[in-house]
C-alpha cells in the first residue's frame, strides 16, 4: 500500500468538501484509476481527459507511477489571467 496525500482546488475542492485528504492506495494504482475512484466518491463534474495531474508542484504525464508519500493534485482546466 502507498500512503499519499491528495490536494483539491476549484470545483473539485467544492465537490470533495475539503482542501486535501490523506489516503492509502494499492501499489500500481494509476492516476486515472485514482481519479476515477475519487470521481465516483465525490461526483466530480469533469472527465479524466479534461484533467491534468501534478505531483508536488510539477505537472506529470498521465502514465506517472505514483509513489509512497506523493502529494497528488488533479488540476481542472485552468483559467488564470
Amino acid at each position, binding site marked *: 500500500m502507498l500512503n499519499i496525500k491528495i490536494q483539491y482546488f*476549484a*470545483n473539485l475542492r467544492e465537490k470533495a468538501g475539503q482542501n486535501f485528504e490523506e489516503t492509502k492506495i494499492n501499489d500500481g494504482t494509476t492516476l486515472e484509476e485514482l481519479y476515477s475512484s475519487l470521481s465516483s466518491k465525490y461526483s466530480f463534474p469533469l472527465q479524466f481527459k479534461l484533467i491534468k495531474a501534478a505531483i508536488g*508542484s510539477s505537472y506529470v504525464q498521465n502514465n506517472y507511477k505514483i509513489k509512497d508519500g506523493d502529494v497528488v*493534485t488533479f*488540476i481542472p*482546466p*485552468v*483559467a*488564470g*489571467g
Partner: protein
Amino acid sequence: MFSITKDAISISDLSQNLPKNIGGIVTFEGRVRNHNVNRSVEKLEYEAFEDMAISEGNSIIKEATTLFDIEEAFCIHRVGMLDISDVAIWIVVFSEHRKAAFDACEFIIDQVKERVPIWKKEFYIDGKTSWVKCLACSAKGVTHSEHFHHVE
C-alpha cells in the same frame, strides 16, 4: 519574476531608475469585465495552487526571456474576490526594441492562461456561479464563444 498577491494590484510608476538601454516597455492589465459568454458578471473569485502557480509562472517568464530579445519581465496575479474593473493580472516587459516587448507580453499572458494553476469562479447577477474553463486559451483562433462553463 512571477508573483501572486491577495491585495489590490497597484500599477507602478515604471519611469524610476530605468536602465539606459531600455527603449520599449510593454504592459498588460487584465481587468474584470462585467460580462462573459453573454452573461452579466457581478464579481469573480480567483483561486490558486500557489506554490505551483509561482513555479510555473517563473518558468514562463524564463522562457519569454529565452525566446524573445527582452531584458526583463514581471507578472503579478491577484487571487481572492475581485470586483468589476479590478486588475486581475499585470504584466510588464522591458526591452531595447518594441517588437520583442509586444511579442513577449503576448506570449506571457497566453501561457499564463494555458498553464498556470489558477482558477476563476464567476458570480452572475442572477445569483448563479460557474467555474470558467479556458481550454487551449492560448491557441490562435480560439474565440470567447468556445469557452464553456460549468454552471452551478
